[in-house]
């Protein structure tokens, strides 16, 4: 793999607990990978260890075949974008972007060429003489990006690059960044706690929690085939039901846990029907929340809460109303003593429910 991480662990100096536990995975060349997890998951620490801003207690890693321990951080060919951009306050945009080239003692005209090219690429051409305090958040982000890639790094690391921005800008910039990184073809890793961001932007997602890697996969895999309860609950919204008695599924002995995505639940009023095959359940409406295009319905299914998405174009529901529910698919978690497994049984009747055998 282009970036290879082998058994990296990091211990807290004082507490004796580990920030990172035996992390191993690889990143393909040209891939845009997200390290996704809640705070404290160790994702930023891992990135900083790769960059050389922190040290691991054990383990090693390599970039493009070169072991990183033997190379100083500034010589690893890494571009780094910090969370707060860390633009040089007393240098203007041009000088900021040119900085990494100047330290490499590139000739002035080469620098000018490269910086101009980058300014154009990031849409900052008119701003080259401005200083960071005269820029908006989104503009600062783009300068930080341009500065990081100016010296032609082999890989690009971004530490929560959009955390400090407004939602609107965040979404625009996400798309822009993804397009640009693919255009440049530079292997990138970015750290985020926002699962939407990871799913929308990354080619591959590494889900982390409490210092462990939980799952690695494409956004689709992570979303639809979570391999443990944590991943299932962290990504997107879902309902978690304990040992429910669901007629349409072959379910094991209790106890077990099922995770159900609201978009996979169809709510049918007395007079409504569906063309999707499957066994229906009965439920009562507990709450209805209008969210614009969709309405989220909270249902009481055999005493447990189940979320469902229902198009707002359809007739409304009333609290207390008795409805039928079609659960299209679910993810099953049956806990052993120490491992998490997911099993799903196919539906018994004529409903071809999808099933995933994972692990």
């Amino acid at each position: 793999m282009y970036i290879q991480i082998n058994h990296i662990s990091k211990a807290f100096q004082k507490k004796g607990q580990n920030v990172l536990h035996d992390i191993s995975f690889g990143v393909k060349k040209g891939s845009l990978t997200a390290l996704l997890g809640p705070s404290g998951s160790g994702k930023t620490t891992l990135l900083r260890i790769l960059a050389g801003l922190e040290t691991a207690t054990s383990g090693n890693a390599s970039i493009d075949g070169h072991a990183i321990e033997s190379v100083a951080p500034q010589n690893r060919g890494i571009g780094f974008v910090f969370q707060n951009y860390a633009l040089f306050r007393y240098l203007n945009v041009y000088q900021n972007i040119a900085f990494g080239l100047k330290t490499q003692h590139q000739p002035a005209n080469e620098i000018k060429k490269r910086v101009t090219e980058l300014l154009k690429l990031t849409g900052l051409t008119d701003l080259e003489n401005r200083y960071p305090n005269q820029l908006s958040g989104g503009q600062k982000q783009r300068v930080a990006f341009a500065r990081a890639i100016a010296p032609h790094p082999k890989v690009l690391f971004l530490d929560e690059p959009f955390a400090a921005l407004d939602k609107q800008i965040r979404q625009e910039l996400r798309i822009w960044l993804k397009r640009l990184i693919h255009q440049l073809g530079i292997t990138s890793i970015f750290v985020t706690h926002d699962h939407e961001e990871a799913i929308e932007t990354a080619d591959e997602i590494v889900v982390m929690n409490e210092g462990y890697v939980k799952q690695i996969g494409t956004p689709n895999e992570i979303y639809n085939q979570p391999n443990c309860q944590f991943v299932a609950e962290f990504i997107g919204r879902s309902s978690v039901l304990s040992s429910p008695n669901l007629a349409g599924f072959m379910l094991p002995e209790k106890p077990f846990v099922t995770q159900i995505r609201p978009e996979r639940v169809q709510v049918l009023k007395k007079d409504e029907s569906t063309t999707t095959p499957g066994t229906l359940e009965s439920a009562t409406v507990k709450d209805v929340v209008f969210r614009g295009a969709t309405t989220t319905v909270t249902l009481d299914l055999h005493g447990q809460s189940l979320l469902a998405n229902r198009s707002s174009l359809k007739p409304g529901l009333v609290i207390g109303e008795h409805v039928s529910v079609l659960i299209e698919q679910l993810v099953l978690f049956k806990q052993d003593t120490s491992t998490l497994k997911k099993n799903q049984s196919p539906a018994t009747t004529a409903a071809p429910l999808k099933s995933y055998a994972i692990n």
Partner: protein
Amino acid sequence: MQKVSNRLVPGYRLGLSITFVGLLLIVVIPFCSLLVQGLDVGFKKFWLQATNDRVLASYAVSLKGALLAALINALLGLILAWVLTFYQFPGRQLLDYLLDLPFALPTAVAGIALAYLFSNKGWLGRLAAPMHVQISYTFSGIVIAMVFVTIPFVVREVQPVLEQLDSTYQEAALTLGARPWTVFRKIIFPEILPALISGFGLAFARSIGEYGSIIFIAGNQPFKTEITPLMIMFQLEAHSYTGATVIALVMLVFSFCFIFAIHALQRHVQRQKG
């Protein structure tokens, strides 16, 4: 793995060396000389020197003087800070500039100026003479010098707090019919108390150790107007290094305890504020 982490920014070894050597030569070694010398003295001799009558009298003078000066400063400094923050009046800017002076003015200059000013021939001393009140060469002179040197401490601590006072509380009190004194006592004073304590502590500590501005106006009469730093000076002039060391160590121990006490008081007040 190589130790890279926070050594990413260069200059650690250079900075550490310079700082280390500098501290060692200028602060640590000289200070250790004092401690070593002090330990050398032996408990009995130490106690005798430290509690010698004349020295004891100097403690009293220094402590009383510093306490009085710090209290005067607390009141006067509060008034000055108040007046500078809330009122417009002729000479306001000048007052603000003048308050920088005691920090920057050489203590010897302040010393001779105050001593002369309050002496019987001086412009102000002359006014008090008919009433048989002497200022220079008395305890009052010492207090005046201490006040002069430390007045900015309290003012500059309290001023920022007064400036940032949220006026909504006072406005609320006003609408409820409170009189100015009540508003001050109940709403404003608790806010500025930590700053006052801080300023008081700084003024007190500085007054105890102050030398140049006091010795001219004090008159330096044994048992009456000698301050403790002067005792150290006398011991040195008499080539009694042990005597000087003993008194110096007593002063340092006292300062240390005092700083500790002030911090404790500040924490207590902070906790009360909630």
